């Protein structure tokens, strides 16, 4: 436990059993676990296995904010946490919660980082030192406006805000969920450096392919127990291999969308500058590019949720839809859109009704439920589901209207590896059976090739390159394609 008289274990669980109040099922069952200083530890496992519960127990969110029944001992920096208040624990453990963009309350980076230090009663001189240290560690400028930051920068800002409070134990809940490759590498490199500087860094993440090269220790959570993974590479292969594309190519020579010098300017910012390419009927198009390059904007233009401010998008889906018009109800029955935030598209009282809402018949809705393996959730309220389940139900609900064009914005976020494999297999099966045209945005290396016939790489609002699976491979593995 001690090396040269220094405490090595930052977090220790000793036979911890935990269940949420009102639920008989134990999330943790005599689980033992530890995370050490000087190490970057990852906690992996399937969705709903209890990873976030472990983080909440470490940070004191359970039992201070969320009630439950707990047996066993949890030691933080050698001290038992039983009876400790959140305000005391947060001086020892910094937690970076999911959804960084929802946690920012100040207009400037400097003030956001200083907030935690003010709460800890640091002197102004010390706060300034902490702000500068955190900004340089997380590659941020204290004078930046928080409203103008990209998703990756917001994630780094919230991490910097936690770092500034000088806790030596940092835990992060799915920090890579919406980050591109560059953002991920930057964050993971900085977390690695922190571990080398003596911090204990614990991260919960599904994207093991991006995380494992940086980590020292891997823990797997299964059936309420935590297991230390001895062979990282074996584990990586079984949990993060690239999914093989088994889909038969359905591409035809007919053009479905033709984009000619498309541009979009919003709030004086040119998001798309000059986008020119074609999408053919029955093609699976993958939009590649870093955070903020305009992929989601382009998807919205194709969906007719926004109109381009320059150039034109010609559709050959149906002449009656016309050109340069906003999407009508009939348009959206032909063009299915799955949002980045799935909860916004769910509104019916049960999953069954949600899927049946756009379906041609109840029978077809049942088939779709069976295909997406959500039959067991049929009577649940869609908003009561986990994030991964919500995403699955949203995709099922949109798929039930049998659209000829399927636009998917980050459809795999929040899915564990088996969920991801299943989701890709379902999407490809629907594509094969219905011959739809699928246009996907994803940062997930594991599934990118499996949903791609035609890759379009966007840099700063321009199409930098078009290609097939080889472009996807190069994008995720090499740097040279961007020069």
């Amino acid at each position, binding site marked *: 436990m001690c090396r040269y008289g220094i405490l090595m274990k930052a977090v220790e669980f000793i036979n911890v059993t935990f269940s949420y109040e009102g639920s008989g099922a134990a999330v943790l069952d005599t689980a033992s676990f530890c995370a050490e200083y000087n190490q970057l530890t990852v906690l992996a496992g399937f969705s709903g296995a209890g990873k976030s519960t472990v983080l909440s127990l470490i940070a004191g969110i359970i039992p201070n904010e969320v009630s439950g029944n707990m047996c066993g001992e949890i030691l933080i920096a050698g001290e038992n946490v039983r009876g400790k208040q959140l305000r005391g624990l947060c001086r020892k453990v910094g937690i970076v919660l999911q959804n960084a963009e929802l946690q920012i309350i100040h207009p400037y980076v400097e003030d956001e980082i*200083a907030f935690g230090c003010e709460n800890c009663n640091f002197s102004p001189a010390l706060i300034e030192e902490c702000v500068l240290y955190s900004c340089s560690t997380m590659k941020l400028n204290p004078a930046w406006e928080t409203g103008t930051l990209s998703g990756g920068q917001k994630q780094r800002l919230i991490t910097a805000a936690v770092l500034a409070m000088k806790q030596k134990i940092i835990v992060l809940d799915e920090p890579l969920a919406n980050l591109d490759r560059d953002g991920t590498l930057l964050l993971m490199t900085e977390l690695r450096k922190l571990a080398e500087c003596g911090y204990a860094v614990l991260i919960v993440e599904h994207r093991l392919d991006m995380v494992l090269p940086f980590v020292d220790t891997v823990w797997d959570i299964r059936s309420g127990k935590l297991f230390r993974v001895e062979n990282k590479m074996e584990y990586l292969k079984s949990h993060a291999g690239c999914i093989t594309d088994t889909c038969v190519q359905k591409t035809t020579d007919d053009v479905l969308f033709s984009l000619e010098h498309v541009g979009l300017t919003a709030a004086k910012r040119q998001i798309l500058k000059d986008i020119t390419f074609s999408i053919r009927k029955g093609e699976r198009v993958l939009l590649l590019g870093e955070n903020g390059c305009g992929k989601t904007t382009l998807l919205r233009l194709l969906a007719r949720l926004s109109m381009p401010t320059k150039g034109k998008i010609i559709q050959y889906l149906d002449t009656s839809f016309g050109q340069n018009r906003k999407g009508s109800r009939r348009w959206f029955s032909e063009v299915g859109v799955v949002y980045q935030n799935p909860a916004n598209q769910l509104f019916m009282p049960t999953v069954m009704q949600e899927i049946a809402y756009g379906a041609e018949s109840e029978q077809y809705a049942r088939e779709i439920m069976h295909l997406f393996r959500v039959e067991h959730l049929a009577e649940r309220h869609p908003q009561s589901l986990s994030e991964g389940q919500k995403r699955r139900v949203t995709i099922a609900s949109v798929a039930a209207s049998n659209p000829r064009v399927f636009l998917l914005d980050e459809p795999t976020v929040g899915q564990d590896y088996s969920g991801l494999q299943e989701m890709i297999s379902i999407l490809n099966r629907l594509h094969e059976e219905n011959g739809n045209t699928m246009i996907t945005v994803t940062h997930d290396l594991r599934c990118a090739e499996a949903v791609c016939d035609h890759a379009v790489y966007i840099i700063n609002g321009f199409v930098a390159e078009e290609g097939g699976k080889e472009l996807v491979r190069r994008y995720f593995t090499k740097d040279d394609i961007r020069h």
Partner: protein
Amino acid sequence: MNVRLYAERPLYPLFGLLSSLLIAITGLLAAPHENCILFLGSVWVVFFVFGCRRACLAVIPYAAVLCAVFSGITYAVSRDGISSYAAVNRILAVSIAVIPGLAVSPVQMVRNFSMLKIPRIITLGMMITLNFFPLLGNEIRQVRKAMKTRGADSMASPRIFYRAFFIPLVVRLVNISDTLALSVQTRGFTSGSSAHSVYKPVRVRFTDVAFILLILGLCAGTVFL
């Protein structure tokens, strides 16, 4: 929060709030009098000189439109020029009273109030509330677009429209407030009287005293003369 409107050298927030209150009350009371427009013009110039240039310019188009609409309605109803003039002054008084709120950043206000020992739950709540309105607008736009994609944006089916608008919006807002509350707590914020510091203390400067004295003088002059 519109960062672009913040003053380069902010006013002392408490004086800013006090001046807003004084201008609104004086302007509303003196609205029918012929000197009121002089008072409001002078106050606008004082704000402009004391660093609130961008906020001063930003209110002009809104004030112009509101003045035209309300004075038009007043004249159409009363056929009285003085009533229309008073309506214009009332709109201008409120528009000018808003300037300190636009020009002082919420974090300055929170730090000022923290130093005055006002409970932090009030000051932080105030800042989150100011942050919340743009967020709410953005969430409403997102939900409206999501409704379109599911074919649920037609008022022809009011039950579906209601469900598709309110359920995701309410769930999202609850989710945002939960996340925000947890985030500030895990970053050491407590609603009690625990010790805390202020990163950049907000102190009264000579110019702040000169500013509030000028505003007090203008208000007193308008009321008594």
